């Protein structure tokens, strides 16, 4: 039996705010997923004309090539300061600071803590993949104990370089933030949860509530040296027990 066009419903499309360009991300990387759900949320909230994104130094440095909004580069770790400058001028715009683990918890720890402590009315999306991707797989502040990287060839020795830092818990010691949640993108259920958290973070900003911090446990198959499927499992089995998923604060 021949199907008629009228029998089909248009149920899925590329988000309008996601630019139609080839991706530079590796297969199985989490950045593409988060970029896409960020674009979806921007569409759903109707804020394409009012959003300014700050891209970090790291694999997602080209973030502004994918999202169809005004975008800005920041030096390594300085995205929160750049976002602060932007937001103080444009109080009515939605400012997003998108950062990786090296950016936010190593070279930019100071900026990350203080932007949260000021309760700056911006939204931080913190991508935690337990490794430095762009530079080729060195230890991140969030690298797991015994995890092998280019600079921990014998595994991360916590007696030597300390334990992986938990971003949400750290931010949760501060008074000002209004929303703190850790998510993951290793399966559809968690991708949808991450989307809801990002949407909440942006809504908070639109309502002028203050600082929202969304940590996303993400995959880096290339630098972990395992397949995309195995990488998704690794987040669930190795990262998740240490980095508890869930909401830490929702005021």
């Amino acid at each position, binding site marked *: 039996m021949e199907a008629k066009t009228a029998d089909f419903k248009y149920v899925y499309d590329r988000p309008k705010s996601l630019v139609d360009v080839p991706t530079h991300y590796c297969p199985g990387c989490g950045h593409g997923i988060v970029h896409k759900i960020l674009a979806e949320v921007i569409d759903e909230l109707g804020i394409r004309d*009012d959003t*300014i994104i700050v891209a970090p130094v790291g694999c997602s440095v080209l973030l502004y090539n994918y999202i169809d*909004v*005004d975008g*800005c580069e920041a030096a390594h770790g*300085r995205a929160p300061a750049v976002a602060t400058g932007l*937001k*103080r001028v444009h109080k009515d715009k939605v400012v997003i600071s998108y950062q990786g683990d090296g950016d936010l918890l190593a070279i930019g720890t100071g900026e990350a803590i203080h932007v949260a402590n000021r309760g700056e009315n911006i939204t931080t999306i913190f991508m935690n993949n337990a490794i430095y991707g762009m530079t080729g797989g060195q230890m991140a502040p969030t690298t797991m104990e015994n995890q092998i990287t280019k600079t921990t060839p014998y595994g991360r020795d916590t007696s030597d370089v300390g334990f992986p830092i938990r971003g949400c818990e750290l931010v949760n010691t501060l008074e000002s933030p209004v929303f703190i949640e850790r998510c993951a993108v290793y399966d559809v259920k968690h991708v949808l949860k991450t989307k809801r958290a990002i949407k909440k973070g942006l809504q908070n900003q639109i309502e002028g509530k203050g600082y929202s911090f969304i940590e996303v446990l993400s995959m880096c198959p290339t630098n972990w040296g395992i397949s995309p499927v195995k990488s998704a499992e690794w987040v669930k089995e190795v990262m998740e027990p240490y980095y508890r998923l869930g909401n830490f604060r929702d005021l």
Partner: protein
Amino acid sequence: MSDQILMKGNEAVGEAAIIAGCRYYFAYPITPQNEIPAYMAKRLPEVGGTFLQAESELAAINMVFGASAAGARAMTSSSSPGISLKQEGISYIAGAELPCVIVDMMRGGPGLGNIAGSQADYFQATRGGGNGDYRVLVIAPASVQELADMTVKAFDLADQYSIPVMILGDGFLGQMSEPFTLPKPSGKNFKKPWALTGAKGRKPNIIASMRLTPEDLLEKHNLKLQKTYQEIEANEVMYESYLLDDAEYVIVAYGTSARISRSAITELRKEGIKAGLFRPLTLWPYPYKELKAVSERAKKVLTVEMSLGQMVEDVRLAVQDDAKIDFYGRTGGMLPVSEEIIRKVRSYGG
């Protein structure tokens, strides 16, 4: 005289910035420029502006990056060791072709040094500590009046060329009080179609210094920056001449050193010694041609600095005759002594 007011150099910079339309100021405390953040903290809220004490010098300069990217006039201030920390941000601002004003009230170094005025960061200001082929327009005032006037001008130059402009003073200039007349706003209005304002009705604006792809070559970008720098070199050189028409002995000095040199020249003239002062007001672009012309008529060119010899390298490049060059400098927060300048110039005659 009636319109004159009395302020510290640092405060005058703050008020002048507000007159210039600066409403965003970010800084981290450091002596001897603390009157600037204190003044701005009090004054900016009165005019609807934003003062924010940053958690670090790095954060401060990057907040300036953000505010400038948003299209606003923004300023930060610091002193030598703090300016060292800002170099990364200055390089990014230059690379992204953003305008801003940076005030440096130099103090003694290296390292923590001391908190007295110094000119030991001429290299840092004019050569930059940040990475890459970039320039910062550097203005060196020598009085409270000039600090105020040049701050207003700095914002215009920054906007006109979309580059960072540095006001290079020192701890003495920042701390001294002098009567001065408040500058007037220039009234110039610079359009910023590149600013990040939300992409309503247009394609997104992107502000970045990174150029990775072949079709967007970094060399092309740098050559474009270079073109701007050449324009600045051609049009924005500022300097002052004092008694140079018949000068046999030319003293080259800027800022506080120039004030001391000027009093030495007054004394020398009383003795019938034909000395004059060449004072660069822009340290980049440096008045090479102008100094070269002056030096050709001179027997000796003495550079006086509160450093152990930094600007003297530019003087050498200008004069191109090492036999004519002499240098006198004090360092570590010490001032050059007028008598020593006089003694040196006297010695050239005999």
